[in-house]
């Protein structure tokens, strides 16, 4: 085993800090700076081949690699959880190639890479959220031509986005879209917030943290600088609403967090638990309890400490 570890260390030392070469990181940083300068605007960048397939967060990883430094503390979540395969792999990746400290605690992290959630604990000034984005273009579903969607952004022609909301109301009597809910950034650029639940949309508005979005396959980076207005689209007579639940978290009793439904068996037993596993654990440690506090799911979450 020691030879394997040696080989692994030797291999790691052959990589530049944070995996990407400095030129690439500079290129990405320039894209990020431009994205910050034009909030919500999709900046094209030369997305690199990464050691994971497209769709596993290559955009997010490149953005993180471009901004991470030796003193950063890195957290990575996947659908709110710190302990899923993807989150664990990316966290280990940066621990290895950038030798940074990792954490599951939102308040300790300086960089939080996320697939499809924003932590429940309010973000703070100085923190960076990095979002993994599969499809950066909010208008793509309705307008397949890139030339046309670019013109629409350039000239602020966003009527088309309302067509999807209109379809929603016509079909369901309300705006039924739940994730990737389009937002206006500083009343100028229409932006897809990546497939986060619309529950998280209000967290972006005037957020003290810097929000960076990376789409690896689509080769786009965009950003929401701290303290920027983020408005979810809606109709005058069908205002924007976030999801609500009748239940509280079965484990920690939280009533104001985003809940996942967990099916327990074939007899229609189910429970609702916080999607943000770190948030839930923190609350439980502080003594909060829910109706199923003793459930095995509550114990099984201390495994990964990498």
């Amino acid at each position, binding site marked *: 085993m020691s030879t394997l570890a040696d080989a692994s260390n030797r291999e790691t030392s052959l990589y530049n800090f944070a995996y990407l070469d400095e030129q690439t990181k500079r290129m990405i940083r320039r894209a990020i700076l431009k994205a910050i300068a034009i909030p919500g605007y999709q900046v094209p960048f030369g997305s690199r081949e990464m050691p994971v397939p497209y769709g596993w967060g290559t955009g997010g990883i490149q953005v993180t690699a471009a901004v991470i430094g030796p003193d950063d503390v890195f957290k990575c979540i996947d659908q709110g959880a710190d302990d899923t395969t993807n989150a664990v792999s990316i966290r280990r990746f940066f621990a290895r190639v950038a030798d940074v400290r990792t954490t599951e605690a939102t308040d300790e992290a300086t960089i939080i890479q996320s697939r499809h959630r924003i932590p429940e604990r309010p973000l703070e000034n100085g923190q960076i959220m990095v979002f993994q984005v599969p499809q950066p273009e909010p208008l793509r579903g309705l307008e397949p031509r890139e030339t046309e969607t670019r*013109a629409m952004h350039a000239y602020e022609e966003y009527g088309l986005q309302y067509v999807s*909301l*209109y*379809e929603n109301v016509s079909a369901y009597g309300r705006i039924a879209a739940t994730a990737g809910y389009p937002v206006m950034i500083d009343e100028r650029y229409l932006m897809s917030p990546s497939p986060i639940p619309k529950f998280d949309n209000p967290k972006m508005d005037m957020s003290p943290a810097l929000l960076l979005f990376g789409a690896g396959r689509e080769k786009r980076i965009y950003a929401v600088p701290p303290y920027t207005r983020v408005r979810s689209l809606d109709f005058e007579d069908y205002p924007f609403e976030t999801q609500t639940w009748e239940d509280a978290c079965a484990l920690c009793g939280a009533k104001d967090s985003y809940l996942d439904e967990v099916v327990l068996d074939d007899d229609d037993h189910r429970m609702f638990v916080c999607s943000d596993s770190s948030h839930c654990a923190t609350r439980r440690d502080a003594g909060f309890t829910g109706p199923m506090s003793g459930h095995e799911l509550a114990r099984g979450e201390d495994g990964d400490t990498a």
Partner: protein
Amino acid sequence: MNREPENVPEPAPLLQVDGLTRMFGHVTGCRDVSFELHPGEILGVVGESGSGKTTLLRCLSGKLTPTAGAAVFDSRRHGPVNVFELSEQDRRRLQREEWGFVHQNPRDGLRMRVSGGANVAEPLMNLGDRHYGRMRQATVDWLSRVELDIGRVDDKPRNFSGGMQQRIQIARNLIHAPRLVFMDEPTGGLDVSVQARLLDLLRELVRDLDLSAIIVTHDMGVARLMADRLLVMKDGCVVETGLTDQVLDDAHHAYTQLLVSSVLQI
């Protein structure tokens, strides 16, 4: 006997086209086309395939940049402007706010992935309407105006027949009260019976809304029914122009005579 108002002053042209030319390399699309279009007037552009009528329409509607020439449109927003000198942003806004374009193939003019109702409502959203209920009502009103079953407002266009799709396209191009509508063979792909009903409808709507329209067609019957005035095109040039009944009943140019005499009489 003089109860009726007289002496209505002649209005300024809505569109004034001057020397419009479009070359494709050394091939002529259309050459040196000039005409005026007045408010409330329907201009027919006739000629066989390849005569340049569609190129002319695409230039006029801002879809194609001409090689030379001007088209001055009396816009609500800017007053008279040369369409080709507008910035792309202003031109797109003009297209959105004051024009309509009815394509021959509804697939080119409709979003096939969204419902018929949303297709009709989209121009309102493009103009900034953000009130669902109001737009829904306007959509339903327009669908009934183009004689479509309003119970099918949420069906996708592909579930409608060709004639019905064309009605949706027409509603979509009129709901925002444009001043000028371009039509490229609007009934071209339809059965004759469907075509007749649609032409009646179009004509009624154009009259009721006091629209101006430029309608490209190779069908002399359509031209006779729809147009106040005709441009006859051949090889990219206008060879004859005049009141529709003048051109059709007393054609002067050899090509126009050929066109008119080629119409089958029933």
